[in-house]
């Protein structure tokens, strides 16, 4: 292999990237945009759900109950309304995600030890949120209810408190259950898919379309030199973008980073080779730039988004899909990322992910190398 020829191809690719404003935007701006977008834009957390209240009782007891809702981090009692239609309207137009109706005889029934019900109306159009909201609301009311019962028992002289079992939850690795910490590491996989696969999928196809490939293959340059020369710039850019995105994650979004920086670089480099090889291969077989880029998006970006565990947990998926994720390189890379950022797992524990990733790297690199031939027909 001739280093001069390899360098000539690489230099040409760099110049072409720098002169093409579209590529420049993709390599420089898109990664940052993606990190910020997913960091801020996707919020799976439920905090401060707006609640409207229709308190028909207006007593000390109803106020106590409402204070508990207000005290909960999950609810934000925004407004008190004075009739039922106003409450339903607030749900219709989205000002409230939940509406609470306290019956007119609430305090009387509580004082007399009678079963009492509080109505909660929930906006079910987002059923994920609705389910969680209902759960939280029940917990708040349950807490209030237990306290009332204990007071009642105390007032009748039964002081001994029965033992109760409660669940003390401690969330490891992501104490605040901040979804940004959960999501942002995975964004690196997305960024690499776009740069590694999407951009490179255009590279071979474009030369055929413009007519320069016919000329190129009549020169002594070898397929390996063409491949390495074209992919090297994207590799460098990709690694640079990984570091930039990691820094934004750590210092801007305060995502904890507990693992080894070396492991991050090595696994990112491996995944980079994977997506580059895929992109190159797609460019060779794709035929036209249009077809190649669409195939690239379908095969790399989309699975990385939906099935890699980046946003949606793999364990929650149907079994068939879980099996499918096993053949997605992105799944292993995202897993490594989360472990490095959040768990700080020692490298030994990462082998379950790194080994499959390494296998993919080798196989795809070989596939790409053998796919390109200097022949027409």
């Amino acid at each position, binding site marked *: 292999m001739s280093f*001069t020829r390899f360098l000539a191809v690489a230099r040409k690719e760099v110049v072409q990237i720098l002169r093409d404003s579209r590529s420049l935007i993709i390599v420089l701006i898109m990664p940052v945009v993606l990190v910020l977008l997913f960091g801020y834009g996707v919020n799976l957390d439920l905090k401060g759900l707006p609640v409207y209240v229709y308190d028909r009782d207006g007593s000390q007891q109803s106020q106590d109950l409402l204070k508990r809702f207000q005290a909960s981090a999950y609810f934000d009692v925004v407004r008190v309304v004075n009739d039922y239609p106003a409450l339903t309207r607030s749900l219709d137009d989205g000002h409230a995600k939940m509406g609470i109706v306290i019956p007119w005889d609430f305090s009387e029934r509580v004082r007399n030890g009678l079963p009492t019900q509080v109505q909660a109306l929930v906006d079910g159009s987002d059923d994920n949120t609705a389910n969680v909201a209902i759960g939280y609301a029940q917990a708040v009311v349950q807490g209030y209810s237990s306290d009332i019962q204990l007071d009642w028992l105390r007032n009748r002289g039964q002081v001994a408190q029965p033992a109760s079992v409660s669940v003390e939850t401690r969330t490891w690795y992501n104490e605040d259950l901040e979804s940004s910490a959960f999501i942002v590491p995975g964004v690196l996989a997305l960024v690499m898919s776009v740069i590694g696969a999407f951009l490179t999928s255009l590279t071979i196809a474009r030369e055929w379309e413009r007519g320069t490939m*016919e000329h190129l293959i*009549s020169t*002594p340059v070898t397929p390996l030199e063409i491949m390495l020369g074209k992919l090297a710039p994207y590799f460098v850019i990709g690694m640079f973008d990984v570091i930039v995105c990691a820094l934004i994650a750590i210092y801007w979004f305060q995502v904890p980073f507990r693992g080894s920086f070396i492991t991050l670089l090595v696994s990112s480099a491996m995944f980079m080779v994977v997506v580059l090889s895929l992109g190159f291969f797609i460019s060779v077989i794709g035929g036209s730039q249009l077809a190649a880029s669409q195939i690239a998006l379908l095969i790399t970006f989309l699975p990385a988004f939906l099935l890699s565990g980046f946003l949606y947990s793999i364990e929650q998926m149907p079994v068939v899909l879980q099996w499918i994720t096993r053949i997605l390189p992105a799944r292993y890379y995202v897993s490594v990322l989360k472990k490095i950022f959040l768990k700080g797992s020692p490298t030994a524990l990462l082998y379950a992910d790194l080994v499959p990733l390494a296998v993919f790297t080798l196989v795809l690199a070989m596939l790409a190398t053998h796919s390109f031939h200097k022949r*027409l027909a």
Partner: protein
Amino acid sequence: MTEPTQAAIVAEGLTKSFPNVCAVDHLSFNVRSGEIFGLVGPDGAGKTTTLRMLAGIMPPDEGTGSVAGFDVVHDPEGAKHHLSYMPQRFGLYEDLTVDENIRFYGDLFGVKKAEREERSTQLLQAAGMSEFRKRLAGKLSGGMKQKLGLVCALTHRPKVILLDEPTTGVDPVSRRDFWRILYELAAEGVAILTSTAYLDEAERCHRVALLHQGKLLFCDTPTNLKAKLGKGVLSVTSSDPRRSREQLEHAAGISSLVLTGDGLHVVVDDAARRIPEFEARLNSAHVPFDAIQQVTPTIEDLFVDAVSGGAPSHA
């Protein structure tokens, strides 16, 4: 001093088929060093396919080829160090400057920097492009793009150059410039194989192979080919070409007759005999005409004669 035993380019029985069509059918010819050899024929004759096979980028179905002594069928990569190929479509990078393109191809052929600088300066000057070094290739005019292609092709001093219709669509003045460069190259001993659909351009080649539907019609110098035609070609100048045609089209001895803008172009069996006959015909029908002269046959005449059989009519 020994003469090279092998011609710079040898094609032997080259054959290539695509679905539904045999593009090149057992083509054989050779090109010597310092010779400009033209593959001439209309679109679809097999010119591009032949050039691609000899450039080592398209394997033939049958036959062999060698370029600069290397077997292009079995060792195409070896041959590529010694040849340059200019495809029909502009093969350079439009988003790179003239200099960057030259550097790129120079590097691919392993030309050292100093040599490349010297050679490219010289070539660009000859092509009249010295002030355009920093211009993007995409911003050059059509004629200049062709010249740039040639400069990039020549930086590594190849022994063989393959050009696919390099002057198509280029105006006659730029075409003349281009040919001047080719003649200089030939004088330096480079073997040049070029293709063209412009039959009149064939006259500029040292030797010519006429192709039609993948087959070789004939191969020789233009002068010899015309001599072999064995027929006379007459030009009738008339202000009423249509009536002239009416009068002459059924006359004896004519192989072909074409209406031109200001007369007729007629291929006959015996010029000396037919001129007075035709003059007589036209005069008796009172058709105005200026002159009937014998002219040299054109390559087109040869082509039409070969393809259509060319038997003259008899009185």
